[in-house]
């Protein structure tokens, strides 16, 4: 039906979009892996980060890629504070409470953004927004290519952080055995907050990588988080490698099914995979046995 070149280009487009999906899933899977909670505020926090990038661009003409340097530490601090002073204390150590607290946070953030920015869909216009990189016969969108590179770089950095640093080791220790980690003198509340902060920092980078080629409105995060949940389940809950590979794969599926079935039906592919994974391999590709 389509020539292999067109299919190949759709696959590449999908990989590039999928990389940003992966970055969003990375934050979600990290928080789940360590805190063992599903963060329902993930989508709203992504929207908030996208609006932060948007506002910096509109108000101070900060380039979206430069704003990574500002928004990322800001969102790390925000995430740290949220876990340390809001989610942690409000949950009283009960996982069900955490679910409700994060759900409440998401409603609060979304409606706050709605009040400030109203429901309009907005974009930022950067001169390189429609630049292309020529690779042989292929014309690849420059912002998306940067998105792919940025996402992979963040995933590698995060992996190095987890493996090489003491804090990374502490995070892994807490994830594996909380009581044991406490007995070794690790401040669990601090580690929880750092992990939540890292999750938010991933979102901030994803937001900055998305904005040159994407729009933002107060509900935009939800669409991404649905996909991110699918990726986390596909890759295995709590697995960094799983999130990365799952993200790339889901992006590819979305793009190819969008090409074959049309834009309106393209997302069907993603959710078919979600159902199949739940039926056939509930632990995901890289997940540990429950």
């Amino acid at each position: 039906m389509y020539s292999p070149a067109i299919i190949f280009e759709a696959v590449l487009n999908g990989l590039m979009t999928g990389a940003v999906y992966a970055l969003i899933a990375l934050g979600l899977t990290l928080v789940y892996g360590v805190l063992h909670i599903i963060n329902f505020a993930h989508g709203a926090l992504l929207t908030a980060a996208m609006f932060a990038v948007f506002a910096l661009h509109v108000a101070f003409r900060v380039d979206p890629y430069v704003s990574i340097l500002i928004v990322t530490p800001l969102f790390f601090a925000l995430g740290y504070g949220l876990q340390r002073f809001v989610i942690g204390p409000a949950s009283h150590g009960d996982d069900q409470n955490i679910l409700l607290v994060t759900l409440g946070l998401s409603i609060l953030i979304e409606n706050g953004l709605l009040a400030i920015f109203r429901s309009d869909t907005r974009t930022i216009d950067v001169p390189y927004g429609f630049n292309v990189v020529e690779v042989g016969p292929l014309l690849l969108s420059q912002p998306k290519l940067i998105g792919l590179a940025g996402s992979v770089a963040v995933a590698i950095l995060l992996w190095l952080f987890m493996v090489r640093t003491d804090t990374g080791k502490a995070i892994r220790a807490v994830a594996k055995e909380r009581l044991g980690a406490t007995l070794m003198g690790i401040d669990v509340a601090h580690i929880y907050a750092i992990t939540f902060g890292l999750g938010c920092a991933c979102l901030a980078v994803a937001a900055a990588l998305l904005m040159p080629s994407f729009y933002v409105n107060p509900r935009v995060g939800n669409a991404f988080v649905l996909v991110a949940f699918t990726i986390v389940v596909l890759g295995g809950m709590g697995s960094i490698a799983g999130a990365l590979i799952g993200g790339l794969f889901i992006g590819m599926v979305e793009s190819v099914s969008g090409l074959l079935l049309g834009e309106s039906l393209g997302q069907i592919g993603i959710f078919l995979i979600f159902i199949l994974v739940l039926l056939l391999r509930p632990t995901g590709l890289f997940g540990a046995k429950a």
Partner: protein
Amino acid sequence: MTNKTPILSGDADRRTILKGALAGAAIIASPAVLRAQTPTVKVGILQPVTGALAQDGGFGRLGAEIALKEINDAGGIKSLSGAKLEMVFADARSNPEAATQEVEKLNGEGVAAIVGGFASPICLAASQAASRYDLPYIVDVGVSDQIVNRGLKNTFRLGPGFGTVTTAAVTNLVKLNEAAGKPAKTVVLVHEDGLFGSGLAKLMATELPKHGFEVLETIAHPTPSRDMSNVALRIRALNPDLVIPSSYYGEFVLLARTMQQQRIRPKGIYAVLNGAASNFRFVKEFPDAAENVMDCNHWHDPRKAKSAAVMKAAADAGSVWAYNIPLNYSCVKLLADAVEKAASRDRAKIIEALTNSTFEDHIMPYGPTKFVNGQNTGAGPVNTQVQGGDIKVIFPESFANAKPVFPVRA
């Protein structure tokens, strides 16, 4: 939500203040005039000024404001002893449910009629809600033929519907193609998957083959769409002579820019009722992507003297020019004429006056109005083309101000 502040805040604020100052001066200067003031005629202006269609709603509102100001400055409704028209603005928030709620509110405010709606789904829902109160509803843009085919006595449309526009679009396209030596044979239709785009694509898909065009594929996309690279890829694979898009502003701009990015250059982009191809914002912001795009759409009659005055008023308000402005201007003028003839605020009498209306003081390329089942039978579209950063009329020849550039690709 009723909101009476004008939309273009910067200039409008100044205007509002000026208006206030003038009103204040008038009170001091002539208290007798104030005492003689007759109650106003409330006019509901319904436009989507937030959400996906916010830009179009803003244009529509501006057109209505220009007309209201002109009518009031000229002494209001004479048959109602100079009663002024008072705008009661309602935000349709880009969805039919919100529009229906707003109609309820406008009815509660006691408006004599409602003008606007913009998108077909909004017009359908809002006119139906208004019909429950026998409230006259003048559709500004909404082109779905369903709007005037439901037998609603309260609903009137000044502009043309789908059937008329597609017939004209196909007829003009055939002429254009024949004049150029028939360079175009294959077509890809791209449309938004709502009522407007789907209906149009369906009509084009049945009409075009009758005139020797081959429709290679019909590609639907949602509104809002975040990415057009797959659509562009499919167009590139099919390599059609012509691309016929029917989408709202954001999506068409994305498509045109993505096609430019992917170096897809068909012999022509022939839009039908497109949200962007006849919009100066698109032409100014992305001149390369916009150049030579043709459109079959609503447009003002450049021969009418009043057109220039309305264009100037829009420019003074800091707005670029779009077809919604003359359409809404003309719709409000049509309503004012009907109220004048009815010499009443009574809804039934206004509906009767609209039904028998032969109004010709509008700036559209139509003759005097003649409504049959609510549709103005003389309404029709024109063909425009972006040429050298300007929007020119290329069809019909009777008032074209440029020759078509076709085929684009040498």
